[in-house]
């Protein structure tokens, strides 16, 4: 990396939901940076503010105060179409709850981000099939999303996040709803995205075993960063952590 500027830099980030008596402070005084190509895991108890943080980082939401620099640019200075383009092309999002279109097929779900891209339409199906193949779901291409198992749904969500070839992958508890075998498969894919394809990966998990795929773990408690450390014994992609 030539420049010193990190990909993501947060200064005193704060997020407050609601107003008056029903206010919840989800994030407070959050300061850290993430460099391009890094694999960072974010850990914390339920309700600690992990998803909130990821949504702000992924331009799906905005902070209440503080500054978020993305590639050196303040996130509040992007226009709405610019944000849409960023979400579409640079970022791939894997949600905690999959968020597939249930009545659409696997292929249609993966095609969705392409429809909003400037990729020529003639290439769409090829790209979508490649992404589906990368998560090993060729045999499910024409199945409806509702008919898939949890692990398969999560892999469709990953294929959808990958289809526009993003440089940053956000994954919110991608193994949270999966059994250990499916979880292992999903983590193997995500791990390789970082180690083989040099994508920046920001992963939320509450399992230490999953977090150890990352190079670095940021721990959050009640909206504050409580620790930020490098992983000493990083796992291999195929590591079996189900025990």
């Amino acid at each position, binding site marked *: 990396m030539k420049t010193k500027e990190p990909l993501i830099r947060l200064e005193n980030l704060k997020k407050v939901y609601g107003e008056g008596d029903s206010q919840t402070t989800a994030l407070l005084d959050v300061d850290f940076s993430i460099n391009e190509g890094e694999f960072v895991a974010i850990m914390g108890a339920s309700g600690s503010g992990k998803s909130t943080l990821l949504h702000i980082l992924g331009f799906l*939401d905005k902070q209440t105060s503080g500054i978020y620099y993305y590639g050196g640019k303040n996130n509040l200075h992007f226009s709405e179409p610019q944000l*849409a383009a960023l979400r*579409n*092309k640079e970022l791939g999002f894997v949600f905690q709850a999959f*968020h597939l*279109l249930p009545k659409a097929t696997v292929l249609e779900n993966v095609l*969705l981000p392409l*429809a*909003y891209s400037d990729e020529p*339409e003639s290439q769409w199906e090829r790209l979508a099939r490649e992404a589906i193949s990368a998560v090993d779901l060729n045999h499910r291409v024409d199945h409806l999303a509702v008919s898939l198992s949890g692990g398969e749904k999560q892999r469709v969500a990953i294929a959808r996040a990958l289809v526009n070839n993003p440089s940053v992958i956000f994954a919110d508890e991608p193994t949270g709803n999966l059994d250990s075998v499916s979880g292992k498969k999903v983590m193997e894919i995500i791990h390789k995205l970082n180690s083989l394809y040099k994508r920046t990966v920001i992963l939320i998990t509450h399992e230490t075993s999953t977090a150890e795929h990352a190079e670095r773990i940021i721990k959050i408690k009640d909206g504050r960063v409580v620790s930020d450390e490098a992983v000493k014994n990083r796992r291999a992609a195929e590591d079996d952590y189900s025990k």
Partner: protein
Amino acid sequence: MTLKQTFKIAAKSILAYRSRSLLTILGIVIGIASIILVTSISAGAADLILKQVRALGGKTMVIQPGQDPKGPGDFSELFTDSIKEKDYFFLNKEKKALDLLTVAPVILETLSVQKDNNFYRANVIGTTEEMPQILDVAPESGFIFSEEDVKAKASYAVIGDEVRQKLFPDSEALGQKIKIKGKNFKVIGVFPKKGQVGFLNLDEVIFVPYTTGMSYLFGRNYFNEIILEARDEKLVPSLAEDLKGVMRSLHDIKTIDPDKDDFHISTQQEALERVGMITDILTALLLAVAAISLVVGGIGIMNIMLVSVTERTKEIGLRKALGATNSDISLQFLIEAVLLTSAGGLVGILMGGGLSFLLSVILSFFLKLEWQFIFPYTGAVVGFVVSAGIGLLFGIYPARQAAAKNPIEALRYE
């Protein structure tokens, strides 16, 4: 996102909720169908009237009692008795000087006619021997009564084809007696089957000398109208003016004010103008009805689109998270609304066209009118454009609501 893709998505979601989509567009369908129906009917009616007016010929003028009717609801001419025999006598006498070919008075009423046990309600017309000439018809057997017969109040009748069939189902009519209001008339002529000629159906008429009619049938001594034929079509406008002068002096009217006249003269030109007026009124009526139903339909569309936006909050959130811009989202819903209403418009046009066709068949078969089915192409184009426009107009608000959703809140929506 390409427009083609947006259309595809919109079409898909319409088809996904087929029965709801159908119910949604019902208002638009009815609105557009009524536009088509009414335009078709008014075009058909105008066509029918024009045909009848033309059938009379451009040389024909009609003097009627009362002032020119001010509108379709003005029946004042029916209640005046100003056109009398002396008017007819004078006009007939001065025929040559006035450049007139024929002058025929008309007194008419629908009366029951009897032959033994057969009855028929015929259009009984008291007139002179010149009437058939104006209508350009002649009996197929027998003769028309003569000038002398009119003077002598002869009890002669010339009957139409339908009258003959009903009264003489299986015997010769000529020379037989028929009974009208208790008085015997001898059938001296039978018209061929001819149908509509000008304003009357020749098959349903009985011509009698007007003198006989006035004395024994109608119980009055004034005419419904006097029909005149000019020597040349070009003379009609100036002749109409001359005739006004003649009529005023005959009726002792000293002023040249149409509001003081107790008669009016219609020409083909004027009849055409009147048809135009009726069509205008129908069109205005149609516009009002259509506008109301379309606004109601549009509000229905807006309602359903708002429901649809709420129902699909999650989908909207997802699309935005994956890179849809606000305008992608609003366009998607706007196109959905426009597709819905245009589909409604198309269905309405087909339905209106079908109904008008059916009506034209009914009118021509059962009412024996020479009604022609006219498909209102302009009405169809306007109807389609308007229906699409309604979708656009009433789709804006729901589309904005959709676009304004925050992606994360939308994704959280259950």
